[in-house]
């Protein structure tokens, strides 16, 4: 499968040389970065070019890199001072370089039996936006609505950008890393008022298992050199 994947990689690079950049990945995967401005053009080429033919858009997902690489518990550096006993809520570790939000497209070519992952970073961190690919793949409709709902990324060109998964009248975008896991509002039925009431949550957020980043030598970080997978 890997030889096949590399053939596709060379075809992608021949067609879209300057527009997409390959990222390190597992041997069987094809990951590409594309600039937000080139997205629609690249998407069209990926779908229509006879050598590429990615006719199916399987999935669109958002990602928020705010906490990327951040751990709540020191591992190596702690040997002189001892391990902390609880989660350090502030966290420490390397922040992600590049835009905070990205939209990731999972493409599938039925003709060539190949998958490709396309990632496009949103230029503005405060008001993230990404051109809608709904004109290229109709399946983007609900997927983009979901990304808008959960991450607050706007999709200019989308005909019906409404919230889809969260409650009617929901505030905020829950899958952003700065949105608390327990949420902000809780809902219950009030016996006296005879209706459902919305209140601020009473649960205190807590960490049961701290986030720990450990370098495990057996699973080498250099993904490309590994065989199999």
């Amino acid at each position, binding site marked *: 499968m890997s030889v096949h994947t590399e053939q596709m990689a060379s075809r992608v690079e021949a067609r879209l040389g300057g527009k997409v950049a390959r990222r390190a*990945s597992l041997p069987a995967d094809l990951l590409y970065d594309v600039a937000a401005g080139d997205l629609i053009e690249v998407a069209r080429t990926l779908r229509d070019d006879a050598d590429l033919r990615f006719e199916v858009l399987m999935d669109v997902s958002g990602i928020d890199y705010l906490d990327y690489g951040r751990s709540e518990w020191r591992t190596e550096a702690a040997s002189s001072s001892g391990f902390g006993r609880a989660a350090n809520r502030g966290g420490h570790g390397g922040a992600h370089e590049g835009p905070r939000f990205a939209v990731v497209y999972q493409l599938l070519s039925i003709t060539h039996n190949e998958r490709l992952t396309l990632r496009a970073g949103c230029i503005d961190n405060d008001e993230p936006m990404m051109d809608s690919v709904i004109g290229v793949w109709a*399946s983007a409709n609900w997927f983009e609505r979901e990304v808008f709902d959960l991450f607050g990324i706007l999709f200019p060109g989308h005909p019906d950008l409404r919230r889809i998964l969260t409650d009617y009248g929901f505030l905020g975008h829950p899958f952003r890393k700065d949105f608390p896991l327990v949420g902000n509002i809780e809902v219950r039925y009030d016996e006296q008022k005879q209706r459902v009431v919305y209140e601020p949550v009473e649960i205190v957020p807590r960490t049961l*298992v701290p986030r720990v980043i450990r370098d495990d030598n057996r699973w080498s970080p250099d993904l490309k050199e590994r065989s199999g997978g």
Partner: protein
Amino acid sequence: MAEIRNFTLNFGPQHPAAHGVLRLVLEMDGETILKADPHVGLLHRGTEKLAEAKPFNQSIGYMDRLDYVSMMCNEHAYVMAIERMLGVTVPVRAQYIRVMFDEITRILNHLMWLGAHGLDIGAMSVFLYCFREREDLMDCYEAVSGARMHATYYRPGGVYRDLPDSMPRYQASRWRSKKEADRLNEARSGSMLDFIEDFTRRFPACVDEYETLLTDNRIWKQRTVNIGVVSPERAMQLGFSGPMIRGSGIAWDLRKKQPYEVYADLDFDIPVGVNGDCYDRYLVRIEEMRQSNRIIQQCIAWLRANPGSDTNPVIVDDYKLRPPRRTEMKEDMESLIHHFKLFTEGYSVPAGETYAAVEAPKGEFGIWLVSDGANKPYRLKCRAPGFAHLASLPEMVEGHMLADVVAVIGTQDIVFGEVDR
């Protein structure tokens, strides 16, 4: 003369034919649908966000609860994504067990679909027939994992334990006579493999029974032929997968095209529809049940010929991924530490990302997993087939009658656990 105008009809969220909590806002002209607007998310639990706050192994149970009628297939995609990132190779016996349970799950799902679909469009008795066989398969789930639905049986590196030597049995009670219990226990007297083998012998005749009830049934055909037609081009545009895309005539099945586990070594066929209507998708799924039965038989043969042992394990021998044996833990300090670390901190997955997809009964169920090297996923995205299918509902029902909406929902095999996540 009375004024004639369109009116808006609210279908669901509590409606038996909505297959869960679907709210459909239908704009109607008489009995014809002009526009349909599905409102989903009433079952949104934020599975993906919850998974980001837990070590990898603790989220396997959440996967069962996504598509709660094809539980193990969801687990499969999730553990496969983790295994790819870790570069772990699963023992062959575990691969066969997984394939066998994937196919059991497929039959479970299709029986549920057939029963509910039939019930929705007026065929009451099919439901009762389907649930008779479902019960046996649920017992297999129970025997292997202890739970009838939410199994959490697949683990990164293999499956939690080997197949049991005995099946749970019925007991005589006030409601079930000794004679009746003995009759039910007859097939359950041997090992689990004996029981499944007995099932695979009985099952083709059961499928014939369903077909007798439906395939040439005039009412069934009137309700399904030429309803919800999707052309192959449109099916690709709309991101269809599984029986939905095969019903439209595209021979696309991940088990054949991008084989995972041992599917490449097994012999089975992929049924493909012609017209892309509800009836073709019905035929495709019926044939898939027969093919799944074939696959299960082949797995049983292999599993019998290669019984589990220390040299033929069902999970990798790596205490970073699986707990040590109980006896070892009592004697060996290192095993105790491994046990403690695995169940508290878990294991760290190398930084990177991957997309792992399986051919779930409803279509392509994919997991996009991003890790930054921590013991929890950085981002987990579940690609649910039902979400893409339901998104096409407005297009599929436009111009049809109100009663056909139910037929289309049925043919899409919607389950809200995975649509809303």
